[in-house]
Structure formats: C-alpha cells, structure tokens
C-alpha cells in the first residue's frame, strides 16, 4: 500500500513545459509602488487625464485596505514594493501587422503552441496577445471591424474609445471592490477590450493569450467585454509563465456586461507556472472576474480549467439583474504538489425568474489543497430564482485536501436552491484493475480524471477542450501509482 502511494506521488510529478524565458528586450519602470510609479505608467501609455485620476483614486483606496485572509490558502505576506509594475517588450514603432512583431516574440508564442500567424491562417480565431504588461498583437482586427466589433488592447481602447471605457470600466467590479481589484485599478497595464454592437453575433472565437516573461514583474491586466442587445460572443483566455524561483503576482480584473438578450461565454485555461514539487516559485493568482446580466434574458457563462499557479484565488461571478437572465459557472480546478486553490463563484439573483447553474470539479493530488467556495444569493425581490450546484472532488493519494464551502443566502421564499456534493478518491483497486487490462497508471489516471471532468470539458470550445484535456493529463503525470 505504502509503496503504491509513492508511485502515485511520482506520477504527479510532471514537468512544466512552458517554463522557458524569452530573451527579449524589455522596458520596465523601477520596482515599487507609489503615486509616481502610477503617474509613470499612465504617462508611458500616453493616457488621458481621467484615466490617471481613476488610477490614483484606486491607489488611495488600496492604501486603506487590507489583504483578505478568509480564503483557505497560506502564503507569506506579499511585499508590494518588491514588484515591478510595468514591463513591456521594447518595440520601435506602432505595429500594423504581425509581420512587424519582434521575431523572438513570435517564436515564444510558437513554443507555446499558439503561433499567432498560424492561428490566423488556419483556425480563424482572433487572438490578442499580452506579454508581460502590454498587448503585442491583435489579429483579425480588420475583419471584426467590418461587422462593427471592437477587439483591441485596453490601451488602445482608452485612446480610441474613451466613451465606452469610461462608461463601463469599473461598472461591474468597482475599484473599491476588493484589495486586489483596487491594486489592479491603480496599476493595470493592459488587457483586452471587446465590444459587440447590437444584434451582432461574433463570427469567430475571440482569444487573449497572457504571458508573464520578465523577472520580478507582476501582471495586472484588465479585460472588459460588452455585449449590446442581442449580441453574442465567445471569448477564450489562456495563460502561461516561465519557471522562476520567486513567486510572481498576477492580479487581473475581468468585467463582462451583457445587455438584453445578449450572451457572453467566457472560457479560461489557466496554466500559470505552479511552482516546483517543493513549492518553490509559482504565480500568485488573485483574480476578480465578474459579469453582469443587465438586460432581460441575457446570459453569462464562465468555464474555467485551472491547472496552474501556486495560489489561485478566483471567483468568476454573475450578477443576475435582468429578469429571466441566466448565469453559469463550469470549473475544473486541478492542484498538485503544494499548489493551493480557493476558487468558486458567486451567483447573485436580483431580477425575477433568474436561473444559475454551478458545476465545479476539484481534483487534488500531491500535498495540494483545493477548495470550492461559492455563494448563491437571492435578493428579496428575486421571485422564482432557481439555482443548481454540483460540487465534486476527486482525491489522488492521501496527502492532499479537498474542501467545499457553499454559502446560501435566500431572501425570497420562492427560491429553489439545490446543492449536491461528492468526494471520491482514485483508489489502488481502480488503478490495479486498469493495469490488469493493460492500461498503465498514468493512462488510468488520465482516463479517470477525464471522465470526472467531462461535464465541464464539454462546455469548452472544441480546440480549447482538446488543449485542456492534454493539460490535465500533463499536470498529473507521475501522480498515481
């Protein structure tokens, strides 16, 4: 028995294959955080006055706040003065096409398996690539513009679409919302902006790829997606980072706004560097993601596959304001070695006849801790609110932990809220059964984990699902015996 558990441990010990560093000239600001740094970032980005003021206001708020300590995660205090808040791959001039992008940078993305040029040709996925702090390339901009869709970096949006940015930025996640969103509001460097006009169904998947490259930097991107009445968009987000011994901070904010009859589908495959087997290094991932279903019959659906980061603190949420609006959250969170994840969602039912669905699959291996934390809140006028939650945990080995913290606050008697939870363990008997059929341990674990996560994987767009499935298998390599 003991021996088998050891083999189990070996099987979890996979290598992070995105851990390379690109040798690219980077322009950074000095370490540390103060008003001058914020002014400098704003100035580098040539921002209008209102943007700078917004940042400074957020910073003033942040100074008065304290880091949250309610999550089921442990980490030493973050020294915010030891972080570089702005790093950008140096470029000589504004880019008009991908051909002008630094070849080193393109190579990086090829190594990551997202050759932008290739994607552009073959898959028809429009990609915005954010390296360290700055958006380096957005493909398909022209074709999208023809149907009136704006898909560009946040910096460009601030310059070219200030009205939209001013109207919606901070409207779903106020700068004062929480410690990390306040920090992000003060120092965010770039991100993606997407606007789908009334009645337009986005003809392709939109995608952003985030990469932290430079040392000692934090990444603070900000994404804003607005779908006007009757619009539809499916948005994909992927992330990786090099292997480094020290921890790096990632504190992003994502805001989604769905007007009447609009639908936004937001899918994430998060594979930031998780740290090594001894818990050295890795990304601290403190992310605030929230969408609001403003109009009637609008729908927001979050799907996430979280395999990376040393620490994940993330609760993609939906505010169901419009009557008959629908919120969904589908999540697979896999933790291995010493990773810690505290993730889940909030479904806030405000409108009448609103529905939400939560499907969370947590997989814990090694000595990791994996927590689901969710809130279903039904406001006092939310007649006929309906929620279904399913939270399943799968344990590999006997040194990891799975935790479920479901909170329910129902203020209307007509609310129907269902919660189901299961915990299971990949047992030695199951593994031996597979091996006796010629399926080795790793393949057996992949088979079982894939089966476990199937319901969520089915929600992902096709190509993404394939990638995510491979990622699950890789992340568990060597985890079971």
């Amino acid at each position, binding site marked *: 028995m003991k021996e088998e558990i050891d083999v189990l441990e070996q099987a979890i010990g996979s290598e992070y294959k995105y851990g390379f560093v690109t040798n690219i000239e980077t322009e950074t600001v000095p370490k540390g955080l103060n008003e001058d740094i914020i002014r400098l970032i704003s100035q580098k980005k040539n921002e209008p006055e209102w943007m700078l003021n917004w940042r400074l206001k957020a910073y003033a708020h942040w100074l008065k706040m304290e880091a949250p300590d309610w999550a089921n995660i442990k980490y030493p205090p973050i020294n915010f003065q030891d972080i570089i808040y702005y790093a950008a791959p140096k470029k000589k001039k504004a880019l008009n096409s991908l051909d002008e992008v630094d070849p080193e940078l393109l190579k990086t993305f090829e190594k990551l398996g997202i050759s932008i040029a290739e994607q552009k040709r073959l898959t028809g996925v429009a990609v915005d690539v954010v390296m360290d702090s700055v958006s380096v390339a957005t493909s398909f901009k022209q074709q999208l513009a023809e149907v009136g869709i704006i898909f560009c970096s946040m910096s460009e949006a601030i310059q070219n679409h200030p009205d939209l940015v001013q109207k919606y930025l901070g409207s779903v996640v106020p700068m004062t919302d929480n410690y990390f969103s306040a920090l992000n509001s003060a120092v965010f460097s770039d991100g993606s902006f997407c606007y789908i006009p009334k009645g337009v169904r986005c003809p392709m998947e939109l995608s952003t790829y985030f990469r932290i490259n430079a040392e000692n930097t934090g990444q603070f991107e900000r994404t804003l997606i607005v779908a006007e009445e009757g619009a539809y968009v499916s948005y994909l987000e992927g992330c990786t980072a090099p292997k480094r011994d020290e921890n790096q901070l990632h504190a992003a904010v994502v805001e989604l706004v769905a007007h009447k009859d609009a639908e936004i589908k937001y899918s994430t495959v998060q594979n930031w560097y998780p740290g090594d087997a001894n818990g050295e290094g890795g990304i601290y991932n403190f992310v605030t993601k929230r969408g609001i279903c403003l109009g009637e019959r609008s729908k927001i659906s979050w799907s996430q596959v979280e395999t990376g980061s040393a620490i994940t603190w993330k609760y993609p949420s939906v505010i169901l304001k419009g009557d008959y609006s629908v919120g969904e959250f589908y999540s697979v969170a896999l933790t291995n070695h010493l990773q810690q994840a505290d993730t889940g969602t909030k479904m806030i039912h405000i409108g009448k006849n609103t529905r939400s669905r939560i499907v969370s699959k947590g997989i814990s291996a090694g000595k990791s801790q994996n927590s689901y934390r969710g809130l279903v809140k039904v406001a006092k006028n939310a007649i006929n609110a309906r929620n279904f939650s399913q939270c399943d945990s799968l344990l590999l080995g006997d040194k990891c932990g799975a935790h479920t913290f479901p909170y329910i606050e129902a203020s209307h008697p007509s609310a129907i809220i269902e919660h189901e939870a299961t915990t299971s363990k990949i047992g030695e008997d199951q593994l031996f059964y597979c091996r*006796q*059929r*010629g399926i080795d341990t790793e393949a057996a674990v992949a*088979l079982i984990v*894939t089966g476990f996560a199937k319901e969520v994987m089915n929600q992902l767009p096709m190509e993404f699902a394939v990638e995510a499935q491979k990622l699950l298998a890789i992340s568990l390599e060597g985890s079971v015996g």
Partner: protein
Amino acid sequence: MLSIHNIHAAIEGKEILKGINLEVKAGEVHAIMGPNGSGKSTLASVLAGREEYEVTDGSITFLGKNMLELSPEDRAREGLFLAFQYPVEIPGVSTTNFIKTAVNEKRKYHGLEPLDAVAFLKLMKEKMQLVEIDKALLTRSVNEGFSGGEKKKNEIFQMAMLEPKLTILDETDSGLDIDALRIVASGVNKLRSSENAIIVITHYQRLLDYLQPDFVHVLYNGRIVKSGTKDLALTLEDQGYDYIKEAFGATAQ
C-alpha cells in the same frame, strides 16, 4: 504456456503460498479448488502482479518470458487476463471507452495501429453477441451500479475483447444465480480454443459442470496437495474439504 515453479509468496511478512508448481499448456483448462484461506486468490494476485504480494522464492515463466519481471500492465499486454472476483467500479469512465483504451494499449505494445472507431464498434458488436451482454451496460460507467451478474458478464466481455492467451477466472461463480452462471460459463466456453488456456479458481463444483476442466488441483495451506481429472472435483463435492484437511492437514503444516 505457463510454468509455475516452486512459488513462495507472502503478504505483510506472512507466507501464504508455500511452493506452488503448475504447468499449463495451450488449449487446457485447469481448475484450482480449495477451502477458504488456502491461497487460491493469492495465487491469482501473484500471477496478475499485485504489488502487495511479495514473491520470496520460485519462478514463473509465461510464454517464454520471466513473468515476475513484468509489470502488471505488461503481463496483461502479453496476454494475461484476470477476471476479478470483485470487479472494480470506475465512475465517470464509460465501459466502452475503458475497453477501447485497453484494446489500443495492448495493440500499441505489440506495435499495431490503434483500432479506429468503426473497426472497434464492429469488434464490439461481434463479441457482445458471443457473451450475451446488454448494450446499455457498455455506455454506463465501468461496473458502476452493475448487479453482481452484470459485473461478471462485463468481465467475460472484456475477456472476449482482449483475446487473452491465458485467463484466470477468480471465483467468477461467486454471487451468481443459476441463469447468470450459465450465461457466463457459456461465454467462456465460446472463447475457449486450442490457442488459449484458462485457470478456473473456484470453491464449488457447479461452474466446473459447465466448463469441464482438463485438470483439477486442490490447493491447501499454500500447496497443491492433489491433482487429478474432473472426477476429483466431484469427489470433493461429495466429501467436502474436510477430507483434504484430514488427509493433508498434518503434512501441510
């Protein structure tokens, strides 16, 4: 095909098998009988390669290879199949997908291309008829919520799909009603050929009525104390295991 020579095996330091010798040739069916605790299931586990059993002495040759050096999965890929006494449930993994993975892992080991979906389904259809298994079971998760009979049928179906050289049926008759027993046994009989061999581990005679073994061995106290033809099984059924215990109790200690 299989040559077991003087096998001693222990679990947690306690010796269970105390020198087993057995020769199995292609085309033969051997029954291993014996009272509870005699070491029958331990023998099955040792052959399949369960790691908690430590082989302290002896050798096992399977198709010319030193079996003790092979991992459990490689033994399976070489052609060893164990029909489990207690088939394991694997939630979330469909039976079809499970068997497909197993078939293709075996093919890969032998340098063959994986079966595509069409070829696999064709093979499945063919074998389903052979062992009379309900199609609906194959879309469900492996053994999850299956009745005792369904689990055993599923074992025989997997045996049919994997076409093993050597099959060990570990108490396959336990927990089966008479109809299920007949179906399971008839499935096994259809899979018998001059190319493969079967070891039937059982406590009772009734499965042997259907399977008609060529040889019957009585395992007692970690040793094979008596071997014979199928008549031996009938004698045991008549006289019970006490007769063995009386005859061999002293020497076996």
